């Protein structure tokens, strides 16, 4: 039997992209601003979500999807605040995908939600390759990780809309060069917005809250 070549020319993750578009249009219908939060483990994703909930909850109806390899430690913390939360355990998987998010959406009160945080699995290698249906991508980079991370994981930094540079309260103890970090990041990604913050002390958080509130409002208008 002769071998025949069939041209494909399609993205390997095309099926995921398609599902992500369906998630996005479902969320658009309810006017929900959806934020995909990505960072390395320990950079402060859950701390950021918790302090943002505490600040915005009176004005904004928030829901959360927590992605972790195992455990419900993070979801429990959100649940304690009385916020709807779904925990996804990836059972070893290093990222969330659109299919997992689709299932989680079935269990969230979408009609009563203005803002959805999706906390991705802590990892700088691949979560950016898997669209989930988000409006914005927010990355957290923290000072103890070092200012060289954009060189090591350029695709993550090139794809994000916002970077929260967290743990700036530790600057006196570290050699992190903020100017060098910003130069590389804005070189790769000229449209990115960078907020230097400390989730612990609250420094710089007002600018992040203001950005979020106005982005939620703009989404509602559409």
């Amino acid at each position, binding site marked *: 039997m002769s071998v025949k070549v069939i041209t494909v020319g399609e993205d390997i993750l095309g099926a995921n992209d398609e599902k992500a578009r369906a998630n996005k249009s479902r969320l658009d219908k309810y006017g929900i601003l959806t934020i995909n939060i990505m960072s390395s483990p320990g950079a402060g994703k859950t701390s950021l979500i918790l302090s943002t909930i505490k600040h915005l909850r009176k004005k904004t109806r928030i829901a959360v999807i927590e992605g972790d390899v195992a455990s419900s430690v993070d979801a429990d913390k959100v649940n304690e605040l009385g916020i709807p939360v779904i925990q996804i355990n990836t059972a070893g998987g290093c*990222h969330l995908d659109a299919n997992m998010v689709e299932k989680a959406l079935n269990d969230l009160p979408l009609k009563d939600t203005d803002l959805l945080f999706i906390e991705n699995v802590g990892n700088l290698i691949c979560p950016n390759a898997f669209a989930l249906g988000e409006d914005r991508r927010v990355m957290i980079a923290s000072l103890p990780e070092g200012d060289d991370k954009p060189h090591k994981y350029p695709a993550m930094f090139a794809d994000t809309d916002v970077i929260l540079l967290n743990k700036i309260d530790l600057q006196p103890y570290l050699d992190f060069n903020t100017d060098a970090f910003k130069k590389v990041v804005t*070189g790769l990604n000229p449209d990115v917005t960078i907020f230097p913050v400390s989730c612990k002390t609250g420094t710089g958080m007002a600018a992040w809250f203001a950005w979020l509130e106005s982005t939620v409002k703009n989404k509602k208008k559409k």
Partner: protein
Amino acid sequence: MHEYSITESILSLALEKASAASASQIKRINLVVGELSGVVSECVQFYFDVISKDTIAGGAELAFEVRPTKLQCRKCQTVFTPQNSEWSCPDCHEAGIEIVSGRECYMESIEVE
């Protein structure tokens, strides 16, 4: 584990295309992956052999064409390959650069019987 989900996607896309062409066996799958895509080809072949075993793609060879990282200066348009941590333009030293190659992750073709 990143490779496992990539491999599942490769298998399902290849099976879909083979079935549309009424093929009885997939012999080879030609893939293009960029250096920055984070795909480890040996891992993908390993997973593929396991999960394709009972399909018409069982025994198929995965061929990876790896595309190197290429950057382009946003100011003078020079295209260059980054050296270690030096990501600014070698000609005009601007830090504003765009990744023009190295993020590919697609299936070019399949070879079937």
